[in-house]
């Protein structure tokens, strides 16, 4: 019921080199130098209280999405621990892992099932999802024929339909068109008002300021700055414009 997230983990070892390469090198007696650990998150600490909205900002490859995946429980931390309490709804990859051959409706059913919704519940919420995603008759077409915007809309609609306590959003707001974005904003503001917690990753400073109370500025897998949204975004914006 209540939700209180404490995440503490130190670094996360990302294996970018394939192990097959390692294998062939061993066989061919070449130097085995490939298995170096790359840290995409180092000593990351973040404690999010229930009802808070936190933004993760930073340049590409700074570890924002990795952090989000750790919170979603998709990645395991190498060290440290990640705790979440409450039901998670995550839109991490475009299309929440939709299967391209299945129709939108079938994918919705599968996602709802993964999230532990009963068949009855998912059928009940189905109209709500299609309405929110504004997907129309396309809901019965295979997802591979969807535009990226449609996928993003459906993904968002599905993720929120499971009534999560915590929402993890990765660059969702960047894909939809203006009217969808507005509806997302409306929804997310309502979600926060109802006590929902959210953590979003985005490059869009406006949505960060509008939705979040706190921001984390990440750089090279480390937290560069953490604090009230205005202060962090101002500092981040300064560096961003200075860099250009």
């Amino acid at each position, binding site marked *: 019921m209540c939700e209180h997230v404490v995440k503490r983990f130190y670094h996360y070892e990302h294996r970018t080199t394939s192990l097959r390469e390692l294998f062939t090198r061993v066989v061919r007696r070449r130097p085995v130098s490939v298995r170096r650990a790359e840290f995409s998150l180092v000593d990351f600490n973040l404690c999010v209280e229930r009802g808070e909205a936190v933004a993760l900002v930073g340049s590409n490859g700074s570890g924002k999405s990795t952090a989000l*995946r750790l919170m979603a429980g998709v*990645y395991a931390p190498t060290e440290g621990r990640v705790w979440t*309490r409450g039901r*998670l709804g995550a839109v991490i990859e475009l*299309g929440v892992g939709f299967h391209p*051959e299945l129709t939108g409706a079938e994918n919705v059913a*599968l*996602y709802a*099932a993964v999230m*532990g919704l009963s068949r009855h519940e998912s059928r009940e919420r189905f109209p709500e999802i299609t309405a929110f995603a504004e997907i129309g008759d396309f809901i019965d077409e295979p997802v591979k024929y969807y535009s990226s915007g449609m996928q993003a809309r459906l993904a968002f609609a599905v993720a929120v339909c499971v009534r999560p306590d915590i929402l993890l959003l990765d660059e969702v707001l960047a894909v939809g068109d203006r009217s969808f974005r507005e509806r997302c904003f409306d929804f997310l503001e309502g979600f926060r008002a109802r006590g929902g917690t959210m953590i979003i990753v985005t490059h869009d400073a406006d949505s960060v300021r509008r939705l979040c109370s706190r921001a984390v500025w990440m750089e090279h897998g480390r937290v560069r700055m953490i604090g009230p949204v205005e202060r962090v975004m101002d500092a981040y914006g300064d560096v961003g414009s200075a860099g250009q």
Partner: protein
Amino acid sequence: MGAPVSALAPTVRGWHTPAEMWRYREMLRSLVVRNLKVKYQRSLLGFLWTLLNPILTLAVLATVFSIVVRIPVPQYWAFLVSGYFCWNFVMQVIGAGPFLIAEHAPLRRSIAFPGEVLVLGAALARLVEFGAEMFIALVALIVFRHHGIPLSFVTLPVLVLLLLLLAVGLMMPVATLAVFYHDVQHALPIVLLILFYVSPVFYPARMVPAALRGIYLLNPIARLLTLFQTVLYDGRMPSAAAFANLFLIAIPVCLVGYAIFARYQAVFAEIV
């Protein structure tokens, strides 16, 4: 920060208790339906393929091995039917292994769920097809071979349990290995082809020279097929020892397979 441990959401872990798995029953159900649907989508004959494919293969095998190469077994077709579907099940379940994690990579990278559900989803979808095949096989055997229902048929559920344990137990290491090495998907068809010849699918195990039979029966699939043939073709009740024997192989195979899968499944999302 004294958060009660019981309320914490599952982070990535290798092992899952049956109670945890039970929460994913709805996912399993929809995966099974989905696996069957995707397979036959946009094919005119749909589910019929599941029957047509093995029946055509059976027809070829039956023709070759009763007319060209003569296997000295009366009512050869009945013998073939008794073991072939079992073999087909094992082959298809193991054969699904290399693609199991890769196919669900997007889902794996977006939501946390036990990978065991994928394994069971693939196996149970195949089991549905196996059920359809067996139904036809049983009818044919009852009508044309035994002219009645032999008592030995009551052991079929046990045989199917053994079949599941073995197939799933062998598939999990294959699926795990395939995440790390793409070589698996190239090597596996060769391994399965060899396995086909060293298993009593189209010939009875008793044709194997006695000197080699000890080694031959190290292959658990050979034992399982023989058991299926005893029950279905001979219509004889197998000895309790034969069952016990196979359980003593199948359970460890399954546990070791699961241990390997559980050991590595936390990193699947990072690699695929």
